[in-house]
């Protein structure tokens, strides 16, 4: 469904992503793990068209999207929940969801907003509330709900567990699993490698801009080097 070949990304003279290849197949949960600054967010931003790769190609759903504008990529069914949630803090919960619907028809919007509220009942109670007043967990739910409004085939999540209490992290990961069961392919970036590998089918390990290891999630959890570096021994 998503195939990255030879991705090279620079920030000015900083060489951030150094020849990365990987793929995500339809129906999978794939996780990308790596330490701070490894380049995980950069890869997601490049896939969604916010940054450009100097070389290689990005193929999504059979089409090359390496030079496609980010607003068109969203329309094709690739949604990105960015690091730090990035909900519109001055807009209400409802308006945030409406923004998520930007590429979609208005006719079915309310029905799909109700579906988001069914999945995240906490948001329903806060429908009229400005997003800036939500807790971190609620903002994460809103960011995910907003992304779902674009009816993605592939959902990319950048550190959804960041800064959340363990119980909430469980909840968020349950929802990711449910979404996947409902047919959404998932590319999950996490520092919480253990949780991510628990729900993932496969994983890639990223170190300073390069993929150094890839395997099934089970095998990665059993791998000594991975355990030492990312799973706390």
């Amino acid at each position, binding site marked *: 469904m998503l195939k990255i070949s030879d991705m090279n990304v620079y920030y000015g003279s900083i060489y951030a992503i150094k020849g990365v290849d990987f793929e995500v197949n339809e129906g999978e949960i794939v996780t990308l793990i790596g330490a701070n600054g490894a380049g995980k967010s950069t890869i997601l931003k490049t896939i*969604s*068209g*916010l940054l450009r790769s100097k070389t290689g190609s990005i193929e999504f759903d059979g089409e090359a999207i390496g030079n496609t*504008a*980010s*607003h*068109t990529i*969203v*329309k094709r069914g690739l*949604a*990105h929940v*960015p690091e730090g949630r*990035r*909900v*519109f*803090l*001055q*807009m209400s919960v409802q*308006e945030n969801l*409406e*923004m*998520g619907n*930007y*590429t979609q028809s*208005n006719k079915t919007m309310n029905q799909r907003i109700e579906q988001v509220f069914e999945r995240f009942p906490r948001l329903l109670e806060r429908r009229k509330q400005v997003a800036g007043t939500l807790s971190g967990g609620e903002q994460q739910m809103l960011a995910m709900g*907003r*992304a779902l409004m*674009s009816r993605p085939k592939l959902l990319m999540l950048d550190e959804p567990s960041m800064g959340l209490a363990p119980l909430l992290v469980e909840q968020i990961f349950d929802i990711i699993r449910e979404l996947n069961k409902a047919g959404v392919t998932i590319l999950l970036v996490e520092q919480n490698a253990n949780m991510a590998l628990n729900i993932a089918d496969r994983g890639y390990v990223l170190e300073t801009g390069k993929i150094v290891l890839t395997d099934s999630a089970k095998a990665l959890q059993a791998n000594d080097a991975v355990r030492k570096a990312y799973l706390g021994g």
Partner: protein
Amino acid sequence: MFFVSHLVNGLQLGSIYALVALGYTMVYGIIKLLNFAHGDFIMVGGYIALFSLSTTFFGLPPAVAVVLTIVGCMLLAVVVEKLAYRPLRNAPRISVLITAIGVSLLLQNLAQYFFGATPMNFPTHLLIPAGGITMGDVFVAYTPLITIIAALISMVILTYLVQRTKLGKAMRAVSEDTEAAQLMGINVNTIITFTFAVGAGLAGIGALLYGAGYPRIEHTLGVMLGLMAFVAAVVGGIGSIPGAMIGGFAIGLVEALVTALGFSEWRIGAVFLILIIVLMVRPTGIMGRSMMEKV
């Protein structure tokens, strides 16, 4: 009686400042650019209105002149954005700022070249009839009355546009977080073009009302008007739409008040004094959010 007429003057001037300030603030909100050419859009609008209305030139009906002026300003702004600002989208802010000053000078010089340096007389009463209405023992001329009403109507429509429509919401989204807006599928370039067009449309209305109220059109008309409106936008809180409205009226009223007290040559100084005081007390302006709130 004396007080009321000065109040009306202040509101009339404030209406125009507010309309112009809105253009500054909207563009700033979207791309963090102080569009110094904005005042000159009004100058161009003033000439369009003058030529289309004046019987020595085209002598068009007022409604047609109004539409031509507004559309003319919008087109000008869209072209300026596309040719001058868009290529600099990722350039340092100072480059864009200098470009804006360049565009401003270019427009002024073009106007001088084509229309001369002598001020031209705006045919006020071809746009707004002479006379007025008497309320109790107060006489209010049509020009200030229509100016204030037209500005208020424009503001109501703008507020509706920004708060309720899809494009307006997208504008707010881009202004709050451009990257996140792109991830929603919003074409940021479209929204920027739209913002310039709306801001310039308001400038077009401002140009018509300015011409009607202060009927001297010259190539430097936008300089002082633009500066005062910019001050109004900053006082109100740059980037804030209600702020620009409040700031515009506030500055207009201050000018009128100082004039009423007999210090008319001090009115500009008074405006800047207000600016300094507001910036000392609330550095982000009356309606501006503090930077802390954003983090």
